[in-house]
């Protein structure tokens, strides 16, 4: 890939008069040695699986293996059908879809990691609901996935996208930034506006810890996907209105790196802190594993210093 920062990405796209999605498609084809058509088709297959997951979570049983979660997407969907959700119908749909995919994931169903499984609901939630709302064809959304992928590629290589490394800001936060940037472009925004949307979105999740109850991708991951889809819509609206990220988005990514690197181990997916270690979190873990930690019987190995 010939870019390492969001600024470079904007510069290239502006000079070449390409959308971020179009440019990423070209670059990916060059990198893999496959044709643009083959590359596009692979992404098209991924988009089909995303839509399947949206549908599955609203129509099938999504109770997770632990029994802790499932059915929230349907609850939000039914509330939306009442016609009076506080968010409005469109944002409420995006939220229901994001919850749906995330519940399919928790129940060991098939999803596309975007960028991870823990954050797999946000992009499908935003994309599928926007497609229905604006009556876009699939090709447009598939190109949008390349745009989201380009943004995620920069975040991942300059910071991180896994909760174990950088907390939930890295995982759900990155997905919100990717969805916000891609949606901005899908709605006719310039590459520059799309990148502002990324910075605006990322700033809103800085510092978010990864503290899953029982170590499962369920509580609070699923609801954070629902919230994440709504935040992505908001960030895209701000950017399309002309709101800019005064701190350049590349610098915000560096802040994510700094914050994530200084996060204690307990707040990076280990289930040793945060919500996982609340009285209720501990009680749930005890009922799942019979102890408050899965690693009570660990061997010791290596240099402890």
């Amino acid at each position, binding site marked *: 890939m010939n870019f390492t920062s969001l600024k470079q990405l904007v510069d290239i796209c502006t000079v070449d008069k390409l959308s971020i999605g179009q440019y990423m498609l070209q670059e990916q084809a060059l990198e893999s040695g496959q044709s643009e058509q083959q590359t596009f088709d692979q992404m098209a297959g991924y988009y089909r699986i995303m839509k399947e997951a949206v549908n599955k979570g609203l129509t099938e049983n999504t109770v997770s293996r632990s029994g802790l979660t499932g059915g929230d997407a349907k609850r939000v969907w039914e509330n939306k059908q009442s016609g009076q959700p506080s968010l409005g119908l469109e944002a409420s749909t995006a939220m229901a879809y994001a919850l749906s995919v995330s519940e399919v994931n928790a129940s060991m169903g098939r999803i596309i*990691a975007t*960028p991870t499984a823990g954050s797999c609901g946000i992009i499908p939630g935003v994309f599928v609901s926007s497609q229905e709302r604006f009556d876009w064809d699939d090709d447009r959304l598939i190109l949008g996935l390349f745009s989201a992928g380009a943004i995620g590629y920069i975040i991942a290589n300059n910071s*991180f*996208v896994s909760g174990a490394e950088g907390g939930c800001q890295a995982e759900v936060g990155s997905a919100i930034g990717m969805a916000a940037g891609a949606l901005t472009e899908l709605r006719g925004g310039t590459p520059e506006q799309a990148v502002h949307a990324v910075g605006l979105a990322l700033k809103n999740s800085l510092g978010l810890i990864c503290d899953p109850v029982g170590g499962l*991708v369920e509580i609070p991951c699923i609801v954070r996907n629902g919230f994440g889809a709504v935040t992505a819509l908001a960030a895209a609206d701000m950017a399309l209105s002309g709101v800019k990220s005064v701190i350049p988005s590349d610098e915000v990514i560096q802040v994510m790196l700094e914050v994530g690197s200084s996060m204690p181990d307990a707040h990076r997916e280990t289930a040793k802190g945060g919500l996982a270690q609340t009285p209720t979190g501990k009680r749930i873990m005890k009922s799942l*594993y019979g102890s408050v930690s899965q690693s009570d019987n660990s061997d010791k190995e*290596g240099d402890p210093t």
Partner: protein
Amino acid sequence: MRFKDVFSIIGPSMIGPSSSHTAGAVRLGLTARSIFGCLPESAEIMLYGSFADTYRGHGTDMAIVGGILDYSPDDPRIRDSLNSAQRAGIRIDFRTAVKPTAHPNTVTIILQGSCREDRITGSSIGGGNIEITNVNEFDVRFTTMYPTLLIFHDDRTGMIADVTRILCNSGVNISHMDVDRKSRKGDALTVIEMDGELPQLVVQSISALPNIHRICTVNQRGESCELHVT
């Protein structure tokens, strides 16, 4: 660059619930299986860090064993892999341990069969992507997302030149390379990541070089595996 392309960000297609603890874990198991070359008689799986803390909830155990059974990350049979391994007569032993220097999601997989034991350590670095960091006590680094050649050989002058000359003549471009040896003139491992698939004939001509012990190929783009012992 730790993440090489758009499909390391959008993707993989996978069975939930966790890209690093489930999909990445399948790929770590698959890599061990590719290097070992066939179904093992037993597998000892040592989990570190967050893998050790949360493996049961994420199905990391089923995922690694699924990989050892040669399942891809979106294979629904992963959910039943522990039973399948038992039915296939494979002894599976999970242990957890502490290694402060390791990446949070790290595993060592030791596969044993009648004639050999292979010991692979790798980490799941996010989004289903993995990095192998040690093979049979050689410190090497590779991602398995390119066609990858592992050559176990004696450390001798000109060995790498001989191998790369064969690759060059066959028109295969090297994207990344890593070499480690146990001692001067001792055992060595060369890992070569390539832009394209290696024709069978080329693998054979490399195996025919002097001082080569064993060659295996790993490629999770196509999930293929070949093994040659000379």
